[in-house]
């Protein structure tokens, strides 16, 4: 089972490193190009959210990103230690754009719209966003 774990101090540029690693893993795992792009987009969104939360609330704690490839597919987890906001809900999203800061719920809404197989769970001290993609059967 091939796994990569990234622990990133909460700086904006690390979001790009995470995308880079996710894209490399997805390509190698044989995910079709369109889904590689979906993964890049969703992983980027999830990390943006986590890095912003840590930068504000837990600057010394790294954001964890897990990429795991097994026979059932490719799993990406973004694990933060930020405050657990209320669930995304589909109320008045426009109201969530207050000031220049974006409410983290916008992020969760975007993620839910981008990826079919997504789980957002409250975990010890924060939130875990789990994204999954099935992999095409391989000849290896």
């Amino acid at each position, binding site marked *: 089972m091939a796994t990569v774990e990234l622990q990133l101090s909460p700086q*904006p*540029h690390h*979001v*790009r490193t995470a*995308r880079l690693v996710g894209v490399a893993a997805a390509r190698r795992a044989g995910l079709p190009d369109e889904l590689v*792009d979906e993964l*890049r*987009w969703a992983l*980027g*969104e999830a*990390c*943006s*959210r986590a*890095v*912003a939360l840590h930068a504000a609330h837990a600057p010394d704690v790294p954001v964890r990103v897990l990429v795991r490839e097994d026979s059932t597919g490719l799993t990406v987890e973004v694990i933060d230690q930020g405050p657990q906001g209320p669930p995304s809900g589909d109320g*008045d*999203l*426009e109201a969530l*754009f207050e*000031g*220049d*800061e*974006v409410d983290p719920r*916008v*992020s969760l*809404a*975007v993620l*839910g*719209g*981008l990826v079919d197989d997504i789980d957002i769970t409250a975990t010890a001290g924060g939130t875990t966003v789990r994204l999954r993609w099935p992999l095409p059967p391989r000849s290896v």
Partner: protein
Amino acid sequence: MDLSLEDRTEGDRTVVVVGGEIDVYTAPKLREKLIDLVSAGNYHLVVDMEAVEFLDSTGLGVLVGGLKRVRAHEGSLRLVCTQERILKIFRITGLTKVFPIHASVDEAVAASD
């Protein structure tokens, strides 16, 4: 891969051509650009997103922030976008009701407020 920003004037509109990735790392540059334009008296903006390769919620926040700024001057902020993934994000977040979205810069420039 990085963010590129260019702007030009078309009549009373200012067209901002954005390329590359708008993420938590590059969004501050876009915010600054929009603030600069508004401070310089450009209240009718057209943001061309056709060359955007990534947009996260930080980027959405910056666009909403830009909209609020031009509105404070009775201005407008129109988007040019035909990329399905980006349109989807605007739809998911309800922002299609907030931004006029056009299929071309010409269309956006011709639109009346």
